[in-house]
């Protein structure tokens, strides 16, 4: 799936999971593809105008957060008590800086708060009410939790609580998460991930997305990774860092390293999901072990693709 190196490049995902062909109505598939295109082109435009990889991934993820089709920001999956509880992380491969938030309930764009944690605090990870206190100090306007809730997510929650598998009903599956990786013209790498987590999750449960090294990682000269899938397995495998370590220490290509993680290491633990990555030269790789992954890739060499299956 990788192609020739490009000067600047971006890949995005809108979650991986059970997306059997034919289950998506044509209208819904169109909406999902349109949402992916908006985020992909939005992020790519930043790069095309000479912007940084960091700005590009933040832009793409914010667009996906605002689109209710995806499990992040508006339209995030709901906890067992019917609330949205959001996690996000961003990492700048240039300076190895990172920022993350977890279990926030009133932040419209968690990826922007994660970035603020990176840029304006001495910390990397803030959680819960403390993270929202920091947001207020940073002049963020908090939104009511109802902002995130959509009729469709409520329906999914009720179905899950009745014991039906959510993935049989309305995609994206409970593993939905959004993310982006990019390389800019200067060779800087960045990664960002944002999620509402699992439908019907226990309040306080934090998955891999906001954990640096698990769901999100970027290091200039090596690679940038954003993950989606069953978060607990990605945490145990320290998935994103594992892929970059395999590239840096063993000399594997990004494609080989991602393939090994998704098709050898995670299955041994019992997990599945997907990864998007970009290497030092701007090669984009998208791979998954679930049935599908909402994804898109665009680079300066002319590649532009959106795919689901």
């Amino acid at each position, binding site marked *: 799936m990788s192609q020739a190196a490009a000067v600047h490049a971006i890949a995005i995902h809108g979650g991986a999971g059970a997306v059997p062909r034919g289950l998506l109505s044509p209208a819904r598939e169109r909406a999902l593809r349109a949402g992916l295109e908006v985020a992909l082109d939005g992020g790519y435009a930043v790069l095309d105008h000479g912007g940084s990889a960091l700005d590009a991934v933040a832009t793409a993820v914010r667009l996906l957060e605002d689109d209710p089709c995806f499990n992040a920001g508006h339209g995030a999956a709901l906890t067992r008590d019917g609330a949205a509880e959001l996690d996000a992380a961003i*990492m700048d491969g240039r*300076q*190895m*800086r*990172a920022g993350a938030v*977890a*279990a926030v309930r009133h932040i419209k764009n968690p990826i922007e708060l994660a970035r603020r944690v*990176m*840029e*304006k*605090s*001495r*910390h*990397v*990870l*803030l*959680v*819960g*009410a*403390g*993270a929202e*206190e*920091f947001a207020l*100090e*940073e002049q963020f306007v908090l939104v009511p939790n109802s902002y995130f809730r959509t009729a469709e997510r409520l329906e999914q929650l009720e179905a899950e609580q009745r014991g039906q598998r959510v993935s049989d009903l309305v995609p994206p599956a409970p593993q939905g998460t959004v993310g982006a990786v990019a390389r800019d013209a200067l060779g800087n790498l960045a990664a960002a991930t944002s999620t509402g987590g699992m439908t019907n999750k*226990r*309040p*306080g*449960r*934090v*998955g891999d997305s906001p*954990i*640096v*090294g*698990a769901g999100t*990682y970027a290091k200039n000269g090596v690679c940038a990774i954003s993950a989606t899938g069953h*978060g*607990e397995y990605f*945490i*145990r495998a*320290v998935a994103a*860092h*594992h892929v970059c*370590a*395999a590239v840096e*220490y*063993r000399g594997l290509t990004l494609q080989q390293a991602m393939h090994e993680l998704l098709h050898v290491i995670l299955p041994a*633990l019992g997990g599945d999901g997907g990864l998007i990555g970009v290497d030092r030269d701007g090669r984009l790789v998208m791979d998954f072990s679930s049935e599908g992954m909402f994804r898109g890739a665009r680079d300066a060499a002319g590649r532009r693709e959106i795919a689901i299956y």
Partner: protein
Amino acid sequence: MSRPRVLVILAVMAVTLLARAAAADPRPIVLVIHGGAGVIERARMTAPKEAAFRAGLEAALAAGYAVLEQGGSSLDAVTAAVRTMEDDPQFNAGRGAVLNHEGDAELDAAIMDGNGPHAGAVASVRHVKNPIELARLVMEKSPHVLLVGDGAEEFALGQGVVLVPRSYFRTAARERELEEARAAGPERATSPPATSPPATRHVTGTGQGSMGTVGAVALDRAGNLAAATSTGGLTNKMHGRVGDSPLIGAGTFADNESCAVSGTGQGEYFIREVVAHDVCARLRYRHLTLAAAVDEVIRKLQRSGGEGGVIALDRAGNVALDFNSAGMYRGVRDSRGRHEVGMYRGEKP
């Protein structure tokens, strides 16, 4: 029997005994602990304080090693060692943890079983007496790895864990430290980004710097590795700040395929560098010795401006402890006869 012949037999016996001593224990049991890294210097220490810290480390070593000696698992051993330090008010974990800006202890912990691997962690809990035990319950009784805040305490209640009032954790020494830290300047949300090393302004009256954390790594008779870490984080920290301790790969990691690591130090650096996993990845993929892998990672931490230390253990029973701070509370005990505790630079282990 002729005299030369007796000598030969004696020599053969001696060689055999020596060889046996060298391979003394093909399946060693090992426990390594730390009680935090930071400004730990002889000049700042009094004799009674030093004796109390050494006694605290010895107690934790004894509790964990007893488990291994009785054939228990590395997981039980690291739990016992960390729990002992959580209960000891000298260390920054459990009772006697440092206080956040609001004056509360806000606790983080993680445990990882290298056989699996499986992991459990909690962050930002305020009413759990032994966070390491709750982390273990998350690992064993929930499908999750990390639970934070009220949700983690709700889970604790569901598991029959008795919550304690916040006052349980508070000690006079920690209240004094918080006052000093507050006087030195409020925890400012808009302070410079942590790309430059934060000033060591959390130096405390107990001789322990800002980076206290407790942790343990162990190898059991069955050859399984485990790691555990528990902390109160930083004095005067912002409510909700989570450091590296409860993050798998950052402050805590164990995998039978590579090694077990527990870290202590400026957590933000450990998170960004994914320190614990990086040690194991270098061991596994670059085929470095454990000592070389730890050495490289500490040097890298130093270059990035971060400070702290790690304890690490591999399946052969090799131990590596290293730190770039003034000192680190630490201890090692194994079935090859090693039994040491230390705190200053230049001391064993």
